[in-house]
């Protein structure tokens, strides 16, 4: 990991700003721009602070970067971007992309994305990525000039397309199955978590009503008045405490969301393998049938039913010259085909090897990150319980003095 960019350069997405400008269709629109700041790490060890470079990027540029990376490195599990639109909202969160809380969480998510790419042994060396961080003008043209869109396999995006692959690598089949399960279970978890958060919010906020009633009641009580009044104050504190608690929980939800989206990146790698394997098998099949055709022409026997065989019976056999010509063409094609098959095979094996290496790296990262996320969740719960104990201890004291 010593080579990776993250060690050489400090990267932050430090600010977000609302902008207006004309989009591709020349229509005025409002969007958010994010400030990316970078600073070389080396000179810091000498006690000097290196200058900070910065530039602004909007979400669509991040998307462009990621698309480029996915196409250019299909064997890599490319880190996902934070969600485009607010999903899994509970009632308090706005689903509006311009909402400041959403923008803030997206800023953090974008920074996280850049850090993940910068820490990846392969991706961090990419020039386009480096330019994204350092070159404000002309970056878009640079990306488009790579012609990556041409390399993109539209079949990868086609979710419904099924490919009858006869011999996929079993590990990829299992991995695809796992990524489906992961996606399903995390989205279920996030949905229920949002509902639980909503209900918890309700419980806390209703207690806030006590404050006002206790205060009004205390006005007519001589002895109970003080106890009621101060207990009411603590109920207000209790009701207010839920806001911070749930905001912190949103960060936990974001951690899980990242892996929800990672599941898609995993699936993309599996699909790529499937497609390569499919192309390989189709090419092999094609080669076999050409060889067969060749043999049939050479020996004059028709082993399998073919339309040609029927038409030649109906309209008469070809001349010997015609047959020779055909055989020659076929032999050329067969040679080409065999070369292609060889290289496809090699490609396939290389892909499996390098993809699997990255998948192992990803698995370790995932296990580490998710375990830490679960621990952070426990820490959140503990903090919430301690706050609750504090408030109710105070309230109990007030009540006992009534």
């Amino acid at each position, binding site marked *: 990991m010593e080579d990776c960019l993250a060690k050489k350069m400090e990267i932050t997405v430090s600010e977000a700003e609302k902008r207006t400008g004309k989009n591709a269709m020349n229509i005025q629109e409002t969007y958010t721009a994010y400030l990316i700041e970078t600073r070389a790490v080396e000179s810091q060890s000498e006690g000097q602070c290196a200058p900070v470079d910065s530039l602004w990027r909007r979400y669509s540029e991040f998307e462009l970067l990621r698309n480029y990376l996915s196409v250019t490195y299909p064997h890599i599990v490319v880190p996902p971007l934070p969600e485009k639109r607010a999903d899994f909202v509970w009632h308090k969160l706005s689903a509006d992309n311009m909402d400041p809380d959403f923008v803030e969480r997206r800023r953090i998510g974008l920074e996280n994305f850049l850090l993940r790419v910068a820490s990846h042994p392969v991706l961090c060396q990419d020039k386009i990525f480096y330019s994204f961080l350092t070159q404000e003008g002309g970056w878009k043209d640079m990306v488009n000039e790579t012609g990556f869109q041409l390399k993109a396999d539209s079949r990868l995006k086609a979710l419904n397309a099924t490919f009858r692959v006869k011999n996929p690598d079993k590990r990829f089949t299992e991995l695809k199955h796992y990524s489906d399960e992961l996606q399903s*279970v995390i989205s279920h*978890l996030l949905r229920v978590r949002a509902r639980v958060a909503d209900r918890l919010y309700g*419980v806390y906020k209703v207690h806030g009503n006590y404050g006002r009633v206790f205060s009004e009641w205390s006005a*007519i009580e001589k002895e109970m008045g003080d106890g009621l009044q101060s*207990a009411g104050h603590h109920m207000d504190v209790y009701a207010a405490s839920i806001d911070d608690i749930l905001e912190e929980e949103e960060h936990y939800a974001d951690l899980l969301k990242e892996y929800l989206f990672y599941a898609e990146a995993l699936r993309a790698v599996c699909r790529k393998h499937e497609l390569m394997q499919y192309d390989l098998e189709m090419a092999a099949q094609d080669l076999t049938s050409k060889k067969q055709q060749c043999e049939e022409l050479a020996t004059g026997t028709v082993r399998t039913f073919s339309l040609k065989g029927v038409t030649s019976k109906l309209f008469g056999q070809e001349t010997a010259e015609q047959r020779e010509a055909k055989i020659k063409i076929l032999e050329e094609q067969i040679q080409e085909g065999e070369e292609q098959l060889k290289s496809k095979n090699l490609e396939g094996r290389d892909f499996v090897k390098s993809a699997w290496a990255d998948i192992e790296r990803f698995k370790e990262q995932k296990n*580490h990150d998710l375990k830490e996320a*679960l*621990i952070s969740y426990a820490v959140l719960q503990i903090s919430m319980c301690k706050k609750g104990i504090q408030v109710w201890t105070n309230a109990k004291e007030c009540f*006992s003095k*009534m």
Partner: protein
Amino acid sequence: MEAEGRVPGPPLPPPSPGSRGGAEPPAEPPAGAPGAAQGPLLAAEVLSLDDEEDDLEVFSKDTSLAEVNSFSPSMPISPSSMINQYKFEDEPELRDLFVTVDDPESHITAIETFITYRVVTKTSRGEFDSSEYEVRRRYQDFLWLKSKLEEAHPTLIIPPLPEKFIMKGMVERFSDEFIETRRKALHKFLNRIADHPTLTFNQDFKIFLTAQAWELSSHKKQGPGLLSRMGQTVRAVASSVRGGVKNRPEMFTEMNDYVETFSQKINILDKIAHRIYKEEREYFNEMKEYGPIHTLWSASEEDIADSLKGVASCIDKCCKATEKRMAGLSENLLPILHEYVLYSEILMGVLKRRDQIQGELDSKVDALANKKTEKDLFSEEIGKLEDKVECANNALKADWDRWKQNMQCDMRSTFTNVAENNLRYYEECLATWESFLASQTVGLHVEEDSEDRP
């Protein structure tokens, strides 16, 4: 003893002010039962109270009695265990009457279906022929008792009865939940009467506790005739026209203002408490689904399976803890607040009745002012009415102070209990999560050394 009840005719006039009801033991034992001419020494001590100081002592003792009696999950149900519990307390005067309500039973006849409850009484009082009684009573009987007590003591604060029928609500008339809630409230009702310094010696109360079913029915049929009751009503209506408000002592106007505000606030509190219960229940329902998802996830994982299962188990434990918290609310806070909602209505009624009694006097006095020649004829009647008003006022004042003290005590203990419930909940959850965290961080330190961090 006030309002013997078993004697047909108009109710006896209240005893002279300054002495509590029951200043002397009954001269005749109840019909049909051999009675002791004199009760044991204990009963006499309790009964003979002339000093004001003794009055106050009894009231404060009643407060502590109320504490013992106020319903909490830990309170034992059977009278004998109550006696045992009480013996541990350092009280100079022991309670001598213990009542429980339990064992609801359904009775189906051709005409109706109704529930009866078993009422068990244990007592050492002399005027009771036996020391233990067991009878069955239905809701109607409780209603009868309440109305008799109100009749006999118009300006005493008679404890509330659970409502006849709950309109709002998903609770069916004869669901187990409904019956249990009602049983607890009926138990409370009788105990509050038993604790009351005056009401506890009421004759109808005694008959309620001791008479067999047929005895009670025949007794109910006796009592002040319909006509005399109507006469009361007519007089009450007449005096209510005047209202008795203009000569109302300052103290009772203050009480009126207090009750109005109290009633408002207690009703709102009741609503808030119900709302909290509802929110907690919804939270509990969602939590039930939350834990198992983590277990499901753990099935797809290897390295983090244990952590996921750990989180699942924590969430499930917190879920159970929240269920206990809810139970605490429904067993304590909700019934008490409901009782005081009913109490606020009762208080308004008591103040009105006092005003009516005053109104009777005022209207007579006004009538007299116009007939100077017949002063002598009326003066005796006016004297009696003046006594009646003074008596009613004193009874109400004393009972009011007692009620306020009890209310303060009930509120203090109920809300303290709510706080304790919540504390218990958070402490349980804290322990669960802390032990999970401990199990995880032990492993993590080992991992950090060997892992290839990006």
